[in-house]
Structures are given as C-alpha cells and as structure tokens.
C-alpha cells in the first residue's frame, strides 16, 4: 500500500530531545494500535514504573524436582498493602510460576498463560506444555514488549519437570533475558539468596529434597530480616514427577530478641 506522505529525511524536523523518532513510515499515530505508538505529547507515555509490586522469588532445583518460594506480600510503594497474596502459581501438572515485579503485569501474563493451558486441554491429545517451552515463549513475548518500549515489568521464575521427570528451573526478566540453573532468584533474592545457596551446593551432585527445603526456609528467613518490602509469611510450590502443588502459607521463624542487645534500642 502506498502512503501519501513520504518519509521525512532524518536530519530535518527530528524529535525533540529525549523523544523518539516515529519510524512507522507514513502511518499516522492514530491508525496504529496504542502499543505500537511512541510516547505522545499529552501524557500517553508508557510508564516503566511498577505500581503494585511483589518482592523476591527463590527457586531451587533438587534431584527429582524443584521448589519455588515467595512471600505473600504485594506492596504499594512502601506500603504493605496486600498481605495474603499467593505469588507462586501452579500452571499445569508440570509447571510452576513464581512472579515478582509489577503484580498487575504478573496477573496479565498469567491470564495469557492460563488461556494457553486451556487450549492444550481442548486439544485433548495427552500433551501438556513443558517448563522449558513456557520459559522460551515468555522470553519471546517479553523481548517483543521491551523492544516496543512497553515492557511487562516482571521478573519470573519458571520451574517444573519435563515428560521424563527431568527438573527445569529458569528465570525470565522484563527484558526477555532467560537462563536456567540449579538456583534462581529475583529481586533481593538475587543478592541475598543466590550466594547463600551457591555456597552450599555440593560439587558433584544435586541437592536432596531435604537440603533444598532447608535452604528455602533459610533464604526466606534472611530475606524477611533484610528486605524491607517483605513479610514473614510465604508459600512454597513443589513440582516433581509425582506432585505439583503450592503449599503453605508458612511462617518465618523470626527471632528479634537480639534487638535488646542493641545500644539505644
């Protein structure tokens, strides 16, 4: 289709400093869907600020399965607004999803994922999506959104087992960057939980289930003590060949008696 307006030479009538070029050729802003337009002059900027946020998610892979834990808080800035929210979701019998970052975006992407699961069920051919495939799909979606300067402001842990029972643990962030490892974490967990777990990893084998559970418990304790946007209540998702469910909520064993030894307390 020929456009009546020719593309402007780029050295004339460029955008104001800080604004973006409109590369959409002759198409006027009005014809394009909202998401494809660049930031407009009347406050239609795509915000990259998160509003209601979930804090850390920690995932640990052990011999035979995966564990994913997150506290049950969704904050509104510095306000602990919603204190009983599950942030670990069972997606299907083989996949768990732990969501952090903007919680509205988590809910939005989860809805899309649930629709995919329903389509799988309708096919009724005995094939369910695997965690690696979901992680790959999320990567494509999130990278695409980021490239259009309209990200989903999320950091998710995708975990589960494949059809042979081999565990998978991956992390996908708002820019569409994905990787998988025996331990992944988002938010403060990346700084506090990751080194803690990595230090305890036996060199020649995977964690056992007991080691992984104890590590989860310890990580959630450390995160509660140190992350100011956290609460001492959390849920844990477990996915193995035999079971896929979200357990909890559990309470962190908090011990504040040391506070009395602090000068000036």
């Amino acid at each position: 289709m020929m456009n009546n307006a020719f593309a402007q030479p780029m050295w004339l009538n460029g955008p104001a400093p800080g604004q973006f070029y409109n590369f959409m050729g002759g198409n006027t802003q009005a014809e394009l869907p909202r998401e494809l337009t660049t930031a407009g002059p009347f406050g239609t900027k795509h915000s990259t600020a998160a509003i209601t946020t979930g804090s850390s998610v920690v995932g640990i892979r052990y011999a035979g399965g995966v564990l994913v834990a997150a506290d049950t808080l969704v904050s509104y800035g510095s306000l602990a607004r919603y204190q009983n929210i599950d942030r670990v979701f069972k997606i299907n019998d083989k996949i768990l999803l732990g969501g952090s970052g903007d919680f509205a975006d988590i809910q939005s992407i989860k809805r899309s994922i649930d629709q995919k699961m329903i389509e799988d069920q309708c096919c009724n051919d005995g094939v369910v999506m695997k965690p690696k495939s979901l992680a790959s799909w999320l990567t494509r979606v999130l990278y695409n959104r980021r490239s259009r300067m309209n990200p989903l402001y999320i950091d998710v842990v995708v975990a589960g087992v494949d059809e042979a029972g081999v565990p998978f643990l991956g992390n996908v962030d708002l820019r569409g960057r994905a990787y998988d490892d025996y331990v992944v974490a988002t938010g403060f967990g990346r700084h506090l939980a990751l080194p803690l777990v990595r230090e305890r990893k036996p060199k020649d084998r995977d964690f056992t289930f007991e080691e992984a559970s104890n590590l989860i418990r310890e990580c959630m304790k450390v995160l509660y003590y140190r992350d100011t946007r956290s609460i001492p209540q959390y849920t844990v998702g477990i996915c193995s060949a035999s079971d896929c469910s979200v357990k909890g909520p559990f309470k962190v064993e908090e011990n504040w008696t040391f506070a009395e030894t602090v000068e000036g307390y």
Partner: protein
Amino acid sequence: MFRNQYDSDVTLWSPQGRLFQVEYAMEAVNQGTVTVGLKSEDFAVLVGLHRPYTEMGVLQPKILSIDSHVGISLSGLSSDARQLASYLRTECTAFRHSYDTTYPVSKLVKTLGNKMQANTQRYDRRPYGVGLLLAGYDEVGSHIWQIMPSANVFNCKAMAIGSRAQSARTYLDRFKATFPFCSKDELICHGIQSIHQSHFTTDEMRVSIGVVGKEHPFKILTNEEVESYQRFCLFAVNPDSSQDTEIDENQSNQSI
C-alpha cells in the same frame, strides 16, 4: 442425475447433502501414484512409488521432510503439496522459535486440517488437490496421519493412498497386527511389499522411503539404501506375477 447441477461451486450443497467439488478433489488424489505409511512403537515409515521414469526428466520428490520429527509423502497435485509442505515447515520453525521444542504432531495436523477446511467453505478458493501421509515421532509416540482434500485428518495404524491403493491397503490390513512389534527394517520391507501389490506396470519399481522414529530424525533414504532394501525385500515376492500390465495413458502430468 442431479450431480451435474450441483457440482459447479464448492459452496453448493446437493439435495443429498454432498459437496461434489470436494468429492471431485478427492478424486485428484487417485491421479497420483500410490504411497503407503505404516508405524511401529518406535518408528514411522513412508514409502512412495515413483511414476515410470522418463529419460528426459528428473524424478520429482514424492516424500518431503518437514522437520526433524515429521515428514510427508504426497499423492495428487504436487504444486498443492509444495504449498502445504511450506506451510507445515513454517509452522514447525515458528513453533521451535517460540517454544524451543518440536511441534506435537497431532496439534500440527489439526492446524493443517483447519487451514484446508477453509478452502472447502469459500466461494473464491478451491480445495487442495493432494492427499498427504504424514509420519512423525514425538513424546506421545509414532504417528501416521492421512490428510485428504476434504480436510479430514485421520490417525492411522497404516494407510495407502493414490492410484490403485486398495491392493496396498489389503496387504497392510493383512499384516497390521504385526506392525507394532516390527523392527525398522521389517517395517520398510512391509512398505515396499505393499507398494509392490499396487504396482501394475512392467517398469522397474522405483520407490522413495522416509523414516522417522525414536532417536532417529526424519530421513529420506538415499538411492543406494533404497535399492538395497528393495533387493532384500523382493526376494520373497514371486517375480512371475500374473497381474495384467496396464498403463493408464490418461494420468495427468500434474500429479505424481
């Protein structure tokens, strides 16, 4: 009697509730030479008979690979088959890009069936004039699917389509109980022998063979491999067959 009144348009029903254009498209499959598909637990095999070889032409492909876990053989309009193969390949690579894994075979054939059905319900399109046998292997196991111009998609234990395929089907039916336990070589031999049942000319029987299975990406066998299988299998078949040698001069050159 009513047939000619209601066959001008694919969007026209006959009083008996038939779409004659779709049925005529099914006839196009019979213009192509026979091809068979059969499967065991771990393997799915396609064997296609080539049109009698003319010295001036290079044999057109009868079997096409779609992805590492799926291949098709065709019977009918080869140009339509190329379009469908292109569609299947695009779907498979797009799926790999999004989901980092191979396209589950039953989902793939369902999307193909949906695409082909659109052509049977529009005034400005005609049904695809080619029948496909699709062989695949995924986590569910081995697959043989039959895809027809009517957009019907059938899951098969074994199937033969094309010109005079009934003899091949009869052979496959006789041995179908043994297929799940056959080795790859036995499956290929059964495929070649069933093709032989439908091979009614005195020309040398030239076939193509495609194999896919567990830890075995889809492969079209080389001429040397095909010849060695043919030599091995046709030992058992009586070379002094008393079948009539018919050459059908009306076979269209569009079909292979």
